[in-house]
């Protein structure tokens, strides 16, 4: 799980173009939206596309999607349970 979290942090940094950040700068348990990383709706789109591209996970339900994007750890747990590639 920890390895997947680190990989996911790296992918988030690349997808969202956080040039000055390293995986160590992201708290796996901090909220991604609002406080914490403070992502916006376009960042959410990048995360949706990241899950589809890298893990074959398609998120269509906004309610479920928002629950998954609570933190990097929750995303990683969802990926582990639902990945198709």
């Amino acid at each position, binding site marked *: 799980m920890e390895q997947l979290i680190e990989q996911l942090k790296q992918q988030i940094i690349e997808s969202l173009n956080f040039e000055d950040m390293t995986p160590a700068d992201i708290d796996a348990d901090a909220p991604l939206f609002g406080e914490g990383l403070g992502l916006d709706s376009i960042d959410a789109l990048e995360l949706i*596309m990241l899950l589809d591209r890298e893990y074959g996970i398609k998120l269509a339900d906004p309610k479920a999607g928002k629950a998954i994007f609570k933190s990097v750890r929750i995303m990683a747990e969802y990926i582990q349970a639902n990945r198709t590639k």
Partner: protein
Amino acid sequence: MAEQAWNGQTGGTHWMQRTLVGLIRCVGIQAVYGIMHLWLVWYVFARPDVTRGAYIFHRRRGRNRFLAAIDVYRSYYHFGKVIIDRFAVYSGYRFDIVAEHTERYYDKMNSHAGFILLFSHLGNSEMAAYSMATPGKRMNILAFGGETPVVMEERAKVLEKNNIGMIVVNPGDISHIFEINESLNRGEVLAVAGDRRMGDKTIDCTFMGGTAPLPAGVFQLCAAIRCPILLTFVLKEPKNKYHIYMEELHINTTLPRAKQAADLAQQYASRLEQMALEHPYEWFNFFDFWNQPHKAVK
């Protein structure tokens, strides 16, 4: 100090808007255009903020104070007609539509891939949706959640008959992003305005001799999704006609990713400027377009 931005609502109370639909059905659209003058004279003085916004646009295009003041009235008259036309469609009225360079549009409508239809508040873009929607491909209009209930309700009814849905953007919520992604994955069309604020973030663009903030989210969305983008203008002509102009915009993939949305926004702004100068009375962004509260992104 930045001025208050347009709140995104079509004016009038529930009762007034219902009356308008009834009036069009009873006396016909030309008579309603005539009656509108009474309302326009009142509106010029009743909404000084809106009048000032329209005046700023005409001054920006080089009109002197006197001519700009007359042009405000002419803009209001055109805007009134477009609003009446919108309600006329709700009551079943049909307009003649002339469309140019629509081959790409119909190619895309016949393909299985999704694409973005980028429109503006120059003219009456909603008319294109009604006339160019097809039963085989659903279109979704990205709508600001702040419209008055009657407009949303009437619009939703007519839109649905034409296989058009609405994806509503509510500030602070990301639900619309899931809906957008899913609809484009299904090969549907997303119609979105590039000249109205959606959220706080903006991209500064050169526009009519100044710098104007365009909504960053719209262009970042286009740049992120990387599907084809068709820019569309729908302009009113005399005798109940509308003219549709279409062209494809391209993401400049040679630029760094962070700059691609800004480049697309500037392509849009440049084309919007050209069309606005050619059709100045169809400019319906009645607020100080250049001085809106914003947070520019780099």
